[in-house]
Structures are given as C-alpha cells and as structure tokens.
C-alpha cells in the first residue's frame, strides 16, 4: 500500500495558531513544526504505521486554543522587553552613529575629498554594523539571521573591497569595469588583470564570510550558499536589470546592439566571482558541532 505524503507541519501549526491572541513569530511556528516532525519520524522509525504515527503526533496538542493562549502569554512580555533592549542599545547608540558616519562618508564621496578618511569611515560603518548585528542576532528571525543579514554583510564587505581597490590600485574603477567587460583580452595581457585577480581573491573571502555568518545564525546548506554568493547575485541583477534599464533611459543602444558584451560582463563580474564565492563558502557547508 503506498504511503501518504508527509504532512506539511509548518502549515498545520500556522493554521491552528492563526487566531492566537497575539501573532506567533515565524520562529515559534518553525520550532513547533519541527517538534511535530520529530515525533512523527520517531513514531515511524519505531514501526508505527503512517496513520498511527500521525495520530500519535497530533496527540501532542489536545487544545490548540489553550496552547495559543499560553504561548501568547509567555511570549508577549518577552517581545516588548526585547524591543526595549534593542531600542536602548541599537536604536539610541549604534544606528545613529552609523547614520552619522554614513552621511559624512557620502558628503566626502560627493565632494571627492579626504579619500583616506572616507576609507576609515566606511570601515567604521561596517564594524559598527557587524557589532549591531551580532548583538541583536538572537532577536532576529531565522531567515533574517541566516540569509539576509549574512548576505548583506558579505555584500558590504565586497563593496568595501572594491572601494579600497579603487583607492589603492586605480583612481577610476569604472574605467576598469567597462574596460574589462568591453575588452576581456585585457584580463590576460593588460593592467586590469591585477585589479581583477585581487577582486576574485576578495570574493573567496566574502563567500567564506557570508557562509560562516549564516552557519553561525543557524542557516541550512541552502542558506549558507545563498549568503555566500549574495554579492554575485547582486552583480548579476546589476548586469541584467540595472544596466539595461539605465541604458534604455539614457537612450544608449550600444548594449542592445551588442548583447554579447553584456553577457561577457555577466560572465566576468557575476558568474566567475560566484564560483570564487562558492569556493570560499565550501568549508562552511559542513555542520558545526554543538558544544
């Protein structure tokens, strides 16, 4: 007799708790769904039939309304406490400091002044952002903590490196960007190859950074891969959406008449760096042992 498909526990929990006195967080729903799954799997592993395992699992909750009320009661005060803690530490100190530094950095960038100071400011922003993220990480939901935040940190690190490279190696990186995309042979023979090689090495480190933060945040293998390759995904979006869109607005038809150049840009600035990032992320795909 064919077995039924496994129930969608997350959906079941969400459906039963949707009328909770206060909305249950995604973390609570995932945690309860995982518990159901474990009970079901254990029942199956000990020889119960599918129907018996299902019945045994559903016995974990006799009254969903009581459970919803008790979870709401035990969670509500905690959430407000957490929000207060976040507002004291992050909202009043870290976020304003980041905003002020960011504004100063933008002004200096706009005025094209004090390049060394700019570099210091962007690094300070990055450090404060990382500190804020680390201190608030336990309060974020799983997806934010394991995908968006590590991906964002990885993207900021990649952007900072590009900026540093511009300051140290060249004065106008956009020259190299277009130069490499339009004349890929320069990657082999021209000066841009050093620019590009340094960029690729940095991508390995950025991939490792994203994947390790994702693993630390409890991300699964897919989340770590996504976080580790996030800057390449953004570059892919830039090459395939932003550049064609801006070219269209500026009535610049070059890339539409030469789509091969655009795809060369995708290959050089998104596909190859993605491979470098995945290389960096690879050591962090293994599970960390729980201490």
């Amino acid at each position, binding site marked *: 007799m064919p077995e039924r498909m496994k129930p969608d526990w997350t959906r079941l929990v969400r459906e039963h708790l949707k009328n909770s006195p206060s909305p249950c967080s995604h*973390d*609570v729903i*995932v*945690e*309860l769904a*995982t*518990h*159901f*799954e*474990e*009970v079901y799997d*254990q029942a199956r592993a000990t020889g119960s039939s599918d129907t018996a395992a299902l019945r045994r699992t559903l*016995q*974990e*909750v*006799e*009254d969903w309304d*009581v*459970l919803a009320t*008790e*979870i709401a*009661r*035990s*969670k509500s*005060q*905690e959430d407000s*406490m957490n929000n207060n803690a976040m507002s004291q530490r992050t909202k009043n100190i870290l976020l304003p400091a980041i905003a002020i530094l960011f504004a100063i950095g933008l002004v200096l960038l706009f005025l094209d002044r004090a390049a060394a100071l700019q570099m210091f400011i962007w690094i300070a922003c990055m450090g404060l952002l990382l500190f804020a993220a680390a201190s608030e990480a*336990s309060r974020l939901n*799983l997806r934010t*903590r*394991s995908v968006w935040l590590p991906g964002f940190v990885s993207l900021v690190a990649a952007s900072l490196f590009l900026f540093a490279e511009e300051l140290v190696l060249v004065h106008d990186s956009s020259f190299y960007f277009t130069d490499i995309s339009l004349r890929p042979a320069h990657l082999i023979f021209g000066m841009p190859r050093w620019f590009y090689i340094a960029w690729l090495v940095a991508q390995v480190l950025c991939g490792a950074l994203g994947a390790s933060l994702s*693993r630390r*945040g*409890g*991300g*699964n*293998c*897919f989340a770590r891969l996504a976080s580790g390759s996030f800057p390449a995904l953004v570059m892919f979006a830039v090459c395939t959406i932003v550049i064609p869109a801006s070219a269209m607005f500026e009535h610049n038809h070059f890339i539409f008449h030469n789509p091969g150049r655009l795809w060369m840009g995708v290959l050089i600035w998104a596909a190859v760096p993605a491979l470098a990032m995945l290389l960096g992320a690879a050591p962090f795909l293994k*599970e*960390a042992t*729980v*201490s």
Partner: protein
Amino acid sequence: MTKRISPKIARGSGELAILALLAEQPLYGFEIARQIGERTGGALQFTLASLYPLLYEMEKRGWVEGHWQSNQAGRDRRYYRLTAAGRKQLAPLREEWRSFFHALDCLAGVSHA
C-alpha cells in the same frame, strides 16, 4: 514502566527537570521531552503543548536562551542552553523541592506509600 504522573503535578516540576537537563548540555525541545520521559522511566512526560510555553516562560525570565542550529539533514532545531541566571536557580529549586517532598512526607507519609 513507572506509572505516569498526572500532567498537573508534572507541570509543576517542569522547571526543575528542564534546568537539570540543560545543566548537562544544550538540547532542543523534542530532545528535552524525550530525555525527561526516558530518564524518569515514563513517569514524567511532556508534550509539545506542555513543554514549549514553559520553555518560552523560562526564556523570558532569562534562565535559558535559545539559538538555531541545523543538523546534518538540514533540519533547523532551536537548542536551549542554561544561562548564568538559570544556573543560579537550580540549587534553590532543588532545595525547594526537597522541602516540598519532606513536608508532604510528614503530612501524608508518601515515602511509605
């Protein structure tokens, strides 16, 4: 197997049971429930409905803290570990329960039952 203790009585002992288990190592919800059942010979049993509100309550008090961790199969589990505040609670709670059993013994002679 030991006779199962009624949920009303079991629930009162939940805090001590969880603190004592987490003092040994971090565990996730299902494993906490499994170990309590196994180590008490089935006398104390916690279901999802009785366990998680208690865990969240203890987390709110700052006795335990949870963090997500994936296993090798990619299943996300929320592990709970004892905080310093939770560790401080363990000894007084043990003492309180010892006094409770002593008082109950004086009153109802439970140790001779």
